[in-house]
């Protein structure tokens, strides 16, 4: 029992550093991405009103909509640059992930591969994942758009339930794709790059323990989602915080995001440990 606790503690300790680095990276990167909002706020003149944050989030939404309308063109003008930067940030997030995988690989005695080939393969893997997701999403959207026409005279509830079922299947497929991606990523981080062989082995691992792995991944993701929702509920339940206290919001949100990254790290370390066994 003690040994298990020590092992869990050691696992968390091993994750702490890379996860904090990952979170700092996100804080900086997304802080840059959100700058147009800060600019819009300072440009709008809302700061000249008493209690501007309370005013913006007051019941009725008059001031929030006023600000959105007034700053809309500037915000829209920044969408392109923010979109580009966002794509860069998503790609650059491979770096803290690589660092996390490297630390896990070393911890589990699997060694670590050099940065460049690992990054190249992780990048290609992420791109392939999103191409697959895009293709399945297109299929789902086509079904949702044309479903009503195809369904003709069916009762509306049956049609919507069918779409809901299709959405659930799509989400499940995304979860399986994520598991496959993570299995491959773990292998990429600790083995010499041999792309097709790595993917083949990941597929074999998935087919061997697919259901268990998918369930485990689902649990981790559900817990991550629960931290987000729990954080929001906590904020809304605090009478002095609600939507308007930036410091409380920052603490709660970053806490939830830290929990999400830790859960992701735990999941990857579980995959790594499973390989080790």
């Amino acid at each position, binding site marked *: 029992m003690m040994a298990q606790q020590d092992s869990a503690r050691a696992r968390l300790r091993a994750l702490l550093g890379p996860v904090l680095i990952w979170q700092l990276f996100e804080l900086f990167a997304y802080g840059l991405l959100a700058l147009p909002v800060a600019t819009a706020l300072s440009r709008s003149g809302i700061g000249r009103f*008493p209690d501007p*944050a309370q005013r*913006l989030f007051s019941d009725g939404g008059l001031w929030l909509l006023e600000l959105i309308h007034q700053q809309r063109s500037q915000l829209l003008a920044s969408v392109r640059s923010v979109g580009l930067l966002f794509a860069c940030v998503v790609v650059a997030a491979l770096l803290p*992930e690589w660092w996390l995988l490297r630390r896990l690989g070393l911890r589990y005695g699997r060694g670590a591969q050099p940065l460049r080939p690992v990054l190249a393969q992780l990048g290609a893997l992420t791109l392939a994942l999103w191409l697959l997701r895009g293709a399945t999403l297109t299929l789902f959207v086509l079904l949702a758009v044309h479903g*009503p*026409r195809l369904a003709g005279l069916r009762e*509306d509830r049956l049609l919507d339930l069918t779409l809901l079922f299709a959405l659930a299947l799509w989400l499940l497929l995304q979860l399986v794709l994520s598991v496959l991606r993570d299995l491959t990523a773990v292998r990429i981080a600790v083995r010499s790059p041999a792309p097709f062989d790595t993917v083949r082995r990941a597929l074999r691992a998935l087919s061997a323990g697919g259901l268990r792995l998918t369930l485990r991944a689902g649990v981790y993701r559900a817990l991550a989602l629960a931290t987000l929702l729990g954080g929001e509920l906590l904020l809304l339940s605090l009478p002095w915080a609600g939507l308007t206290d930036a410091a409380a919001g920052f603490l709660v949100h970053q806490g939830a*995001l830290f929990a999400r990254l830790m859960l992701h790290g735990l999941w990857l370390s579980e995959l790594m440990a499973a390989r080790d066994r």
Partner: protein
Amino acid sequence: MDAAVRSLLLVSCARTELPPPGPTPVDDLPRSTRPIASYTLRAELDAAEHVIHGSGEIRWVNASAQPVQELYLHLYLNAFEGPHTLLFRNPARRARGGAVSRRWGHIQIDRIVARQLADADLLPALEPHSPGDPQDGTDRRLPLPAPIAPGESLTLDVSWTSVLPELSIRTGFVGDFHFAGQWFPKLARLEPDGQWAHFPFDALSEFYADYGDYDVTLDVPEQMVVGASGHLASEQRAAGRRALRYRADSVHDFAWTAWSRFRQREEQIAGTAVHLLYPPGYEHDADATLAVLRRALPHYGARYGSYPYPDLTVVHPPAMAFEAGGMEYPSLITTGGLWHESYWSRAVEYVTVHELGHQWFYGLLGSNEHRWPFLDEGLNSYAESVALREFFGATASATPLGIQLSGEALRRYVMLSRSAQLPIALKATEYPSLRDLGSIVYQRTALLFQTLANVYGEAQVAEGLRRYAVRQRFGHPTPDDLLAALAETLPPAALDNARAALFDGHGVNYLLSQLESAPAEGGLVESRVRVQRQGELQFPVTIALRSAAGEQRTEDWDGAGPFHDFIVRGPSPIVSALVDPEVRVLLDDNLLDNAASAEPSVPLAPYERSLAALQWLGGLLGP
């Protein structure tokens, strides 16, 4: 009709219990009027081919002061003849739900004979297209062989074929669902000066006609459930078909729907037999619709005169025919929304309240929707705001992401999105786009009347509108009639503002342009606050001032002149000033320049929330 309103409603709303209905209004207002254009029609629906074979008579009285030697027929189903028609040439029809059809429709007159003119066959003389537009056949001149003198009648025997299009702009069919909006040959309205108010069917414009008595027999397959204007007078079944005879007196249009899968509910509300038709699975929506009607019928009746017809039919189309939703016809309205929406939003109630309001602002006040769309859509939007506020409260119009949005806030947002400062009282077709028409005709009118109510008194505006509605009941009012009624209850300054907004497109912006403090005699501090008014509208406003010591005071300004300086002497300087703190002037073009502060700050909470939202989005898209 409500493209802009519907866009406002596609947001989630917090559901709260509806308060109990008010008392049924009782008044001695007329329940009918002299018929000018009456129709006795028989329509046989070929449900397989989606074709209506129609015949009957049109009885018309020349109620003008001039002899008439021509008629104008509105054959509006021809708007669905193809992409070449005026309706489909206008890009605005897309926002009205006018997708290019997979099956076009049209109306063809087979016979038209004038009884009092020796049974003259008028068909050869019917002009082939709308005046000046060979591509459009919706507005057709019909010369008469002899003049019809003032007060004389004319009876036309007609037969026609209406080929329904695939459902588009609230007309047509989907599967065996049929909605017949502009489905019969209909006379334009002759104005008292002898001029025909005729116009082709355009995407930006709606309708205008004389009151009359409609006696319509609908012959449909037996399995069809039918909803129609008026009340069901008789029903006969034979050879697998049903013949339903509807009587609708003192109305200016007649619409109907037929679908084999409609469910029905009947309820007596405020002395009116309400017939609700809805698709299978929409029981919860039906509950919500009836619940809001129990409030809304007495509410509108008390404010604008009792509902005069014995029946009201409310149609909730199925999702496959959502295009038929959100429309008004005399004693028949269509509402809308998906089966699950009523569990988490107020959309069905909002659409129902809006369309029901049209029974007054369109139905009983039969203004020219083409010439002055604000008289029906604008006033109805204000009336709807008042009703919704009474039913659901001021702030809970919608709650996307947990933020409660008020109707006024949403209206302001849409109003501010207009592309130009245009008058409210333009012709429908004078607006550059449906977006402009929506933001000005619907939202700006509602906000103008709410501003008048906020500044000059809610009761005064309500009484002015009540007098207008009562005097013009079964009439064809103009803006002058509206302003004449308002002039009896509102001060001249209010009328000046109303006229300037309606006819000149004038607006207003209050701003605090200066806040300075300097030492004064006796160890005091002198603060100077300058309030400016831009634009032609002139409303009195309040200015809230706060000193560094926390003292609060208010000052009033009548709004005269381009600016006013407030000079305040005291032991501590004024550090914060705010014009119109209660936001009474909802027409103010920019509320964010209404404040000045010696200690401005930037609220960080929205930035923090944006950061968190982006981080979560990145988490979704990332590894």
